[in-house]
């Protein structure tokens, strides 16, 4: 398995070539190297997948140590990769979907001045994600974790001349950093309790060292969860994801749909052995997950920007995955993650193709009846919408049903009910989006309508491939029929199992549940059809009647405004006051919020630095007297 290093080396090579030698390689070269490198990595991942599959069920763990990175006394951290079913699946998703998105970007970013810089960042992101996914210890994973955050900052703020993009990038980075803080402290706690950061050692020692439901186990689990919440945009740290739509659309597809945001779910699955020992933490994960799912879905109902809707839908679907982890079905979570990567990437790319065709227009109220102009995009978008809504043969049905079933089977009836209702909302807003864009009367203004065109083949071909995957992908995990759930069986050895999963409900109930969730989805689609196609004036009337509720949802529950009032405004007022009283120059920081708060505190201290030598001598004397007093008291 020593070839596995290739998987990291290839994107690294891409970064170096695109980054530094772009002038020699030229634009055409870059457009071949960028996607090519990720494609090769995908092939290596496939080879690894088959090799792992060939191994016996319990021996499916290969560690590839490159060299010891930090080694002092008994505390050693190696630069090493861990190949097991979980990491192989993630590698396949990252490189596979990544490759398609790279190809798509060749078309989408074709006439963008920062072309080479874009591909360098994209390759760098793929490299960091692969490091995160294949690390064999917490420290290396943390490095991937930070690097991925850095790349998302660079890519969101790609068009940095636009202030909103730069601010969104900074906001994303800061919120991620807050999450990373929890992750780092959790990592230190693990280091203190286990004395090592190596996954295999930690997870073997976990049952012994940590008492079931004990304080340390719960604390570690919750701290790691804080990191996951930051990265995967759950309540309350989800505010950055909708703003992250400022970046180019393929970026949203790759980072904010398929890969990076799922890092949190991957980390939870990887640490399933720890979470199994902390039922309270699992309960927290489940509630946060389902709450986020519902919360984001409601906001998604009324958004009018095509990418904002998809962003909230991503937050909602991530909520689903966390719910799955919360109820102990880590396998289902990864299964849904994989399916979600397919259809959400397709939705974003489809949206990108619509925006590309409409010359940058993103407001769905100015679209309509585009199916004649963009047939391929329309069909692929339809397949993806069906998949996410969870209609029978498509991918979403199997993965979402798996989650609903495990929630129901493990006794979390409340969670199950909310999840089903969210499924209804998902179906509704997805098809509202679909109908408003592709069907009904065309609200496109005159001269725009003339030059709507289908995207070039280099963009539509990846759409087609993703569409096939969204349609067929589900068959990997067919429930009930023995051996059907291949993905579940494949992942089993790598994931710990909670006992709650044991009471296996009868086959009958599972079939019943499947039928019920199918019905709910169908009702959602029908309602969307009736309101937006058959009688378009109805949504307007409903908006009037429930005006307050409508405004509440439209303004995203005023969360951003609340954050502003809670953190930014008092800080700004504080620093203004400091400024007025001490008449110091106001500091033009790029970051609002926390930055301003700290700055007002800093300018208060500054007064202390007067420049008089005797003042300095005085402060030294104060220090002396305090030190002496301390010792005399001792």
């Amino acid at each position: 398995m020593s070839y596995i290093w290739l998987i990291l080396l290839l994107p690294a090579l891409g970064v170096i070539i695109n980054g530094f030698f772009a002038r020699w390689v030229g634009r055409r070269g870059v457009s071949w190297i960028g996607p090519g490198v990720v494609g090769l990595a995908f092939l290596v991942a496939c080879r690894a997948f088959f090799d792992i599959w060939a191994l016996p069920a319990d021996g499916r763990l290969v560690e590839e140590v490159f060299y010891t990175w930090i080694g002092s006394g008994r505390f050693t951290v190696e630069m090493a990769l861990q190949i097991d079913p979980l990491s192989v699946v993630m590698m396949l998703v990252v490189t596979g979907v990544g490759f398609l998105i790279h190809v798509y970007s060749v078309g989408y970013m074709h006439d963008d001045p920062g072309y080479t810089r874009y591909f360098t960042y994209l390759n760098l992101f793929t490299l960091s994600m692969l490091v995160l996914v294949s690390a064999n210890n917490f420290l290396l994973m943390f490095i991937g974790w930070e690097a991925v955050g850095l790349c998302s900052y660079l890519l969101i703020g790609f068009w940095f001349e636009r202030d909103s993009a730069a601010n969104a990038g900074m906001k994303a980075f800061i919120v991620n950093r807050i999450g990373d803080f929890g992750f780092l402290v959790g990592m230190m706690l693990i280091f203190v309790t286990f004395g090592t950061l190596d996954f295999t050692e930690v997870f073997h020692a976990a049952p012994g060292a940590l008492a079931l439901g004990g304080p340390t186990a719960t604390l570690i689990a919750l701290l790691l969860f804080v990191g996951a919440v930051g990265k995967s945009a759950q309540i309350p740290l989800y505010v950055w994801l909708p703003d992250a739509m400022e970046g180019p659309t393929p970026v949203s597809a790759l980072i904010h749909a398929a890969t990076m945001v799922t890092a949190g779910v991957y980390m939870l699955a990887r640490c399933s052995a720890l979470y199994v020992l902390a039922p309270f933490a699992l309960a927290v994960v489940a509630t946060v997950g389902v709450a986020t799912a519902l919360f984001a879905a409601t906001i998604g109902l009324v958004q009018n920007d095509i990418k904002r809707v998809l962003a909230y839908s991503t937050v909602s679907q991530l909520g689903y995955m966390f719910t799955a982890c919360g109820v102990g079905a880590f396998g289902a979570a990864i299964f849904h993650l994989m399916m979600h990567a397919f259809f959400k990437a397709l939705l974003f790319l489809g949206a990108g193709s619509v925006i590309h065709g409409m010359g940058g227009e993103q407001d769905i109220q100015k679209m309509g009846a585009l199916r004649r102009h963009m047939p391929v995009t329309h069909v692929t978008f339809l397949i993806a919408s069906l998949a996410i809504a969870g209609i029978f043969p498509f991918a979403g049905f199997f993965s979402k049903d798996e989650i609903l079933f495990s929630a129901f089977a493990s006794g979390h009836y409340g969670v199950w009910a909310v999840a089903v209702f969210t499924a209804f909302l998902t179906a509704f807003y997805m098809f509202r989006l679909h109908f408003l864009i592709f069907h009904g009367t065309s609200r496109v203004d005159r001269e725009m309508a003339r030059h709507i065109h289908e995207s070039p083949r280099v963009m539509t071909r990846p759409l087609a491939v993703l569409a096939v995957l969204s349609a067929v992908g589900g068959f990997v995990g067919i429930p009930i029929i023995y051996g059907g759930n291949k993905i579940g069986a494949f992942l089993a050895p790598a994931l710990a199992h909670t006992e709650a999963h044991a009471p296996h409900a009868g086959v009958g109930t599972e079939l019943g549940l499947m039928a019920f969730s199918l019905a709910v989805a169908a009702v959602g689609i029908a309602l969307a059809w009736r309101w937006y196609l058959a009688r378009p004036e109805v949504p307007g009337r409903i908006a009037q009647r429930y005006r307050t509720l409508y405004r509440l949802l439209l303004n995203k529950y005023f969360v951003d405004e609340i954050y502003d009032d809670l953190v930014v405004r008092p800080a700004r007022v504080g620093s203004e006051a400091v400024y007025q009283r001490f008449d110091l120059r106001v500091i033009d920081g790029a970051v609002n919020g926390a930055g301003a708060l700290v700055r007002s505190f800093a300018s208060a201290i500054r007064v202390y630095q007067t420049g008089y030598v005797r003042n300095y001598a005085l402060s030294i004397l104060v220090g002396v007297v305090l030190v002496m007093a301390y010792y005399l008291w001792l």
Partner: protein
Amino acid sequence: MTVGLAHYLFVSAVLFSLGVVGVMVRRNAIIIFMSIELMLNAVNLTFVAFGRFHHTLDGQLFVFFVMVVAAAEAVVGLAIIISVFRLRESVDVDRMNLFKW
């Protein structure tokens, strides 16, 4: 009452504190420097006193080296004070707050 070690320590403590107050209170750089010299001398006294009661000469040798250092420091210090005077026409320490915050 025979003169014990404590008496010498007390005298040097007083001299040291006077030096410290001198640095705090006066604005003239040279007077500040003299107060620092005073503090150094108080330390010399402490060294010799401890040496005397430990019956070891290390203390006195340390004083020897402190004196040499004080001499070197005086040379450099006064050279700095003079070059400051040349630029600022005054040695008032408070006039020198070029660096606000």
